[in-house]
């Protein structure tokens, strides 16, 4: 077998260098080869394109009404809140909320009546029902979480407020989500 002399044990020989070099090259090549096999599972170009921002016309939504649109496979509630709903949302002490957040931080300035939230309960993912529950907001029938008219969690097992998706007003009656 491989005979090691005293000198070979002290100084790495040319043979060792060769083996180390080959081993390193193999490792680098292996990782580089593996990357495409992993990367292919990420969303492909057509999925990414289908998830492009969408525009929603707000004109058909009367005061006190809401619609549900889908973006990137997720349901999004767009609610035209009544004055009463806005007051109820703003009269709460923010620090007393399970997930403290002011109503102003969850809507766009100058467009306070429009609430845009992702309609997925932050507990285990069911879709809460609009205009239900004790807070004039949303009620999730799966485990009883209650959200207020700003989409914030008030009682029930859900830990967080209904998330607000990225959106902006392209005009007073049109928003772009995403």
């Amino acid at each position, binding site marked *: 077998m491989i005979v090691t002399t005293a000198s070979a044990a002290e100084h790495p020989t040319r043979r060792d260098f*060769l083996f180390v070099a080959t081993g390193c*090259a*193999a490792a680098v*090549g292996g990782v580089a080869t593996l990357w495409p096999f992993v990367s292919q599972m990420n969303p*492909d170009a057509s999925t990414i394109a289908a998830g492009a921002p969408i525009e929603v016309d707000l004109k058909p939504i009367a005061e006190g009404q809401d619609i549900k649109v889908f973006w990137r496979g997720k349901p999004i509630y767009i609610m035209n809140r009544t004055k009463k709903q806005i007051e109820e949302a703003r009269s709460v002490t923010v620090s007393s909320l399970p997930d403290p957040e002011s109503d102003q931080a969850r809507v766009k300035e100058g467009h306070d009546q429009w609430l845009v939230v992702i309609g997925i309960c932050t507990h285990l993912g069911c879709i809460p029902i609009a205009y239900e529950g004790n807070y004039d907001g949303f009620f999730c029938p799966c485990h009883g979480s209650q959200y207020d008219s700003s989409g914030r969690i008030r009682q029930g097992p859900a830990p967080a407020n209904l998330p607000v998706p990225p959106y902006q007003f392209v005009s007073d009656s049109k928003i772009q989500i995403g």
Partner: protein
Amino acid sequence: MSGPSDYQPTNPVMKWIERRLPIFGLVHSSFVVYPTPRNLNYWWTFGAILSMMLGLQVLTGVILAMHYTPNADLAFKSVESIVRDVNYGWLLRNMHATGASMFFFAVYIHMFRGLYYGSYKEPREVLWILGVIIYLLMMATGFMGYVLPWGQMSFWGATVITNLFSAIPYFGESIVTLLWGGYSVGNPTLNRFFSLHYLLPFVIAGVVVLHVWALHVAGQNNPAGVEPKTEKDTVPFTPHATIKDLFGTCCFLLLYAWFIFYMPNYLGDSANYIVANPGVTPAHIVPEWYYLPFYAMLRSIPNKLAGVVVMFSSILILVFLPWLDTAKTRSSRYRPLAKQFFWIFVVVGVLLGYLGAQPPEGIYVIAGRILTFCYFAYFLIVLPLLSRIEQPRPVPNSIADDVLAKTGSKTAPMVSTVIALVVAGALFAGSTQNARAEEEEAPPSQKWSFSGPFGSYDRGALQRGLKVYKEVCSACHGLSYIAFRNLADPGGPGYSVAQAAAFASEYKIKDGPNDQGEMFERPGRPADYFPSPFPNDQAARAANGGALPPDLSLITKARSYERGFPKFIFDFFTQFQEQGPNYVDAILQGFEEKPPTGVTIPEGSYYNKYFPGHAIKMPKPLNDGQVTFDDGSPATVAQYARDVTTFLMWTAEPHMEARKQLGLQVFIFLILFTGLMYFTKKKVWAEAH
């Protein structure tokens, strides 16, 4: 695997596992200390290469199955979306498709090694038969895999091969209906082929386990054909065979990478880039190259049932080889007559392969019959006869003696056989190019900016070509695989995302239904695809005198012409892949007012110099001055043809630049790594010799 292992681990965890499931001992005795003859040559590395190819095909196949849709209406498009949209999808698809060819290339070498060195002889008969079973499973797997993209060749190949079973008397038709799941090849057939194509490789893996087990019982054969007698005859499998196999694998990977990155369509058929059409049979139905010899034998026999029987027998006869060739001397090295007949047999196989791609006419038929006879004569007449009458040369006393006796003669047989195989391989590969044997004039070869290993798309040409398509071709031809967002992709026309969005918004796209239940039109968005000018094929035909203007997305890959001998051999080395663009460019410029004397063109058709049959339904689409270019390029037919063809090459292969770039990196790495492996192998084997 003969008796308990002598592997004693020191690590307590290893000891614990080993006592309950001695898997480390199994690996140790089978692949580490396993005694391997020390005189094996590189033909013996193909077992390891085949194992790697099986693993790679399974891995790439499982991943492709994550994105593929096995439905007749969706399959072709799903394969295109893998190639266009999935991250590295083009790479995975190329790996799997060329991997199948490489798998068969390796298995043929592996089998011919077995034939030459008598590896099928006692006590390795079961090993050999298991190998034949693996080969049959591979053929079934490859056949079903080729059907999955649902191109023209997929569909018609499936029709021809499943129809073979109708030759069986009485039950034939019922068996075919059972296979089809319908009255013809259709969606049920595709679905079950997908399921079985996914299943069979794992069956192959199981038989491979049996194959390796049978091998380890008898031990490996070796070039001298003399069994190991003492310890001096063998070396431990690790590191000697492991490193040598790895080096052989690296060399094989270089060839594999050549196809994946630079010649992905060389071994395929351009007709498979056309969606399956049950109403139109391609002019030449040709299987993939690895089935060609058997296809030739099938077509040589004028009787349907006899042809099928002959074809299957040509494979099954391999099973009987240990009893047909009973010569005591294993290796053909020491059998001068058997050696020559072996090489004649190889040539017969290659010629049969070549014939399989030719139209079954004239001299090809006669040659096919003679060669089929020769094929069977080798097994049924030559080998049994030689067993009786041949005087073999004396074999070495032992493997150790064989190694010591080697002077320079070791390399010589390798060189001659390599040359023979290269010629054979080139003929084989090129024969698939000959399937479209035309007496027509071949389109002139143009210079394209995207040809060769460093080719890239001329951005200006792509943008001008898009303009030509939009202003001229889009009136009749769709481009449905291209989305507006692709115009901003890297390696394309080079528009910005905003420009692509603006381009899209000029189009009216049908969408809906809206809340009233009606379809409506809206401006195009980047995610939309180029709209087709007609709502369906029937409307397209009605508007074009009964002819269907093809969608142009894949046209430069769906058209080809025969390059002829010896061009197709040079093409492999020069990476020539531009038949499609040459053809499209020639068609666009090949219209002539008056056909030559003696040629009549039917009413409603036009004369085109390069269109097969010369009568094309499309009127001359391009005229000078038709399109003005912003960059001042000449407004001539030649310029339009060139630019739109470049554009259409991009629509057919949007990721070509990425493919060639990654190919360069892979090649540099592989060459360096192969070099490192070569020196590592030499060092590891230094003591052994």
